[in-house]
């Protein structure tokens, strides 16, 4: 569970004053927090660990690492249930 998963940043947005992104991993898009890599732009590839981008990588590195994680069956965390990812998490009226 210590491994970080590479993905492509497809959208950057603000949530409650926190810099967030939508990151595409293979066919799955999940949110990631960008507070630790604030200069990240749309189109960048980042290593994401439990919902936080921790390091930037290039596209080739991202592709290979993703493939390896897939082989090692280390992508299961991406299947964790969504907790109201779109929206600010406040209770709906």
């Amino acid at each position: 569970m210590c491994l970080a998963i590479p993905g492509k940043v497809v959208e950057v947005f603000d949530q409650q004053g926190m810099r967030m992104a939508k990151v595409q991993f293979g066919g799955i898009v999940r949110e990631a927090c960008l507070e630790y890599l604030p200069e990240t732009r749309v189109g960048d590839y980042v290593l994401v660990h439990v919902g936080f981008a921790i390091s930037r990588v290039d596209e080739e590195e991202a592709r290979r690492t993703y493939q390896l994680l897939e082989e090692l069956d280390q992508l299961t965390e991406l299947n964790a249930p969504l907790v109201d990812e779109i929206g600010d998490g406040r209770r709906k009226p």
Partner: protein
Amino acid sequence: MKYLDEYRDGRLAGKIVEEIHRIQTKPWVIMEVCGGQTHSIVKHGIDYLLPSEIELVHGPGCPVCVTPMEMIDKAHAIARRPDVIFCSFGDMLRVPGSDGDLFTIKSLGGDVRVVYSPLDCLKIALANPDKQVVFFAIGFETTAPANAMLVWRAQQEGVRNVSMLVSHVLVPPAIAAILQSPLNRVQGFLGPGHVCAVMGYREYEPLSAQFKVPIVITGFEPLDILQGILMTVQQLESGRAEVQNEYSRVLDREGNQPAQKLVFNVFEVADRKWRGVGTIPKSGYKLRWEFREHDAEKLFDVKEIDTLESEVCISGQILSGIKKPHDCPAFGKECNPQHPLGATMVSAEGACAAYYAYGRHLKRDKDDVKLTAISTGGAA
């Protein structure tokens, strides 16, 4: 048989393997620290490609494995409470405590939820103001920034019904403990790539100097691991002991500084118990006093629970590089991933579980496999 032909670049892998064979003159014991590396080594049979005098031993770098049973029992006691929503990464659900696992607690009506990110707990807490949301914060340095952010945001936003059960561990003190043991056999280390993506590798330099061991920060692709082993053997053969970075395409000496800053704001270094190994001084994090309102151990007065570990289990010696899974009489028999008896079998990244997953409990000895690996791969 798989091995070399399935590498990203089988020719390059073959060249590195040849070079290791060419320069090796003495026996060496090298430890990979990270559980992800262990998994990759066993899956790709990397140890079988090396000269027989180079032994790979498997380190303590699997956070699920080293979480002490007492902590798991504490988590379970909290998760059983009706006023609690207990959140955890998926890996912890199947880890047995003294009495069942989180999965069982959930099936008996406990509100146990798997989260993707610690920040999910904040959302769950806001949506459930009448419940206390407790997050089981385990992990190494890679995970610490994510967990720190949960507590930091909770405090900033005044969300009081979220807390953390912290069981955080750190790599450098574990390396020091291994090297200080009178039984130590490890002469060089492959350092943990993703841990160092956060922390950098500055803090490994004094360790390498004090104990005169090469530490090569390494990724976890098979080619990275082979390259890391080559760099370690080059140092050992030439009598050098320094920190080198094999994984420079991902990390540098300083690491991710914004992440380190928040981690130090939220956590302080504390003694931690490691499953199978015992207490290692200053080897983990606890929440700083300023965040005590979010400290589940303070909020829920869970008594110390006496836990019984299996007597046959030698996982502590496996995690320290003294023994290997095959040295354990229970390996693949009474102890298997469905019924783990000890630390190194509870998660896929533990050495015993990795050996089991790739059928090594069925092999008589590694030489059978070694011949096949080399003949199909064309190395050596």
